């Protein structure tokens, strides 16, 4: 296929280059070309949020972004949160507060909660419920996810570089 673009971007701090058709979705590039299967696919209508990544400082549904739009972008996925064997405060929080059961929505949840806390370091429960409403969960009923985010907020989590 002649219609391919080379796209270079940063993934969890590392430089990557991919050659893709314009129609290739970022979620597929991440999962299949770059072997980052943390972000998941849960729908095709951009509702569930399981594919959420942090793209240039924004929580974005990677199923609704074309890889060709990501030239020079900085992408953070769940795989980038643990640094030198140390878990991020959100990862600690989800474990401590039982914020996950099947784990499928968890990478998207943590990635979204990360940006939420960067922008709103001391959110109320109401804030958390409103600002996490782009991530669906069927197992937890959200209550312990709220607690997990609150736990992390108390640790004043660092920026992930």
């Amino acid at each position, binding site marked *: 296929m002649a219609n391919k673009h080379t796209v270079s971007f940063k993934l969890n701090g590392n430089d990557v280059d991919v050659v893709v058709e314009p*129609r290739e979705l970022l979620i597929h590039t991440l999962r299949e070309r770059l072997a980052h299967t943390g972000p998941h696919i849960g729908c095709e209508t951009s509702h569930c949020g399981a594919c959420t990544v942090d793209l240039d400082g924004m929580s974005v*549904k990677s199923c609704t972004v074309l890889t060709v739009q990501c030239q020079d972008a900085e992408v953070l996925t769940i795989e980038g949160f643990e640094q030198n064997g140390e878990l991020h405060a959100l990862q600690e929080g989800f474990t401590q507060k039982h914020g996950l059961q099947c784990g499928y929505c968890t990478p998207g949840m943590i990635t979204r909660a990360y940006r939420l806390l960067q922008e709103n370091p001391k959110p109320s429960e109401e804030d958390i419920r409103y600002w996490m409403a782009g991530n669906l969960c069927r197992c937890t009923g959200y209550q312990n996810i709220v607690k997990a985010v609150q736990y992390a907020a108390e640790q004043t989590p660092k920026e992930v570089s």
Partner: protein
Amino acid sequence: MIPRQFEYHAPQSVPEAIALLQKYGDTAKLLAGGHSLIPMMKIRFAEPEHLVDLGKLAELRGIREKGKELRIGAMTTENDLIWSTVVQKKCPLLVEAARLIGDPQVRYKGTIGGDISHGDPGNDHPAIMLALGASFVLQGSNGERVVAADDFFLDLYSTALEPDEVLTEIRIPVPAKGTGWCYAKLKRKTGDFATAATAVLLSMKGDTVKEVSIALTNAGATALKAREAEDSLRGKKLDDAAMAEAARLAMSICDPAEDQRGDVEYKTAMTGEMTQRALRTAHERAK
């Protein structure tokens, strides 16, 4: 889940974008935030052969004040609007509306220009723009022109935008100090289009209405300005009976489509109720 093949173009300037639109005609679509278009392409309801991505055009993003106007670049995102201290202070109606659109992730990408130019009566900004008396800067191969919101929304998925034109800027007259505002939106859940929604701006003189602006979302083929409802309130006392009458007049221009959100009767009645809610809240906020 997988769009059809297409060619992707990332122009570095507005003239370049316009040239691409001219070249590819109706086989091309503009890509703004992509959160209306890409989902449609993934289920193959939309199959453009060329995508013209406005994402690299930094000049299309930003919020500034010029005289008595707020000027907002068309690629400004909903999230930008929500966090903008200028918009929070000068035009809180926009913030309230943006907060009711989509979900947090959608709002990082969804743009005010995309929401306006899609021509979808379910989108929220058109009614807000009608209520604010906004105007739009359109740039095309014939140069630049400014079109009032009142003249922009023509029909279902049809606006005044010519095929080779790009909406570049939204100009909003800053509401006078003390103006009350409210966007009341009834929806089934986060991320849903409005079952019915009403935008109100209201300024009072004592307990009578000095000026009022009422616009409706998803109640017809386009966003609708409820002029008779507005007329019925100007110079009147804003009591329960007046608000009920305004609601009734707003309902009288409704022509909503029946769908899973409700039948015509329900949606019309909800337009009435959202109008009442919006008037009540705007009244509380008016000083």
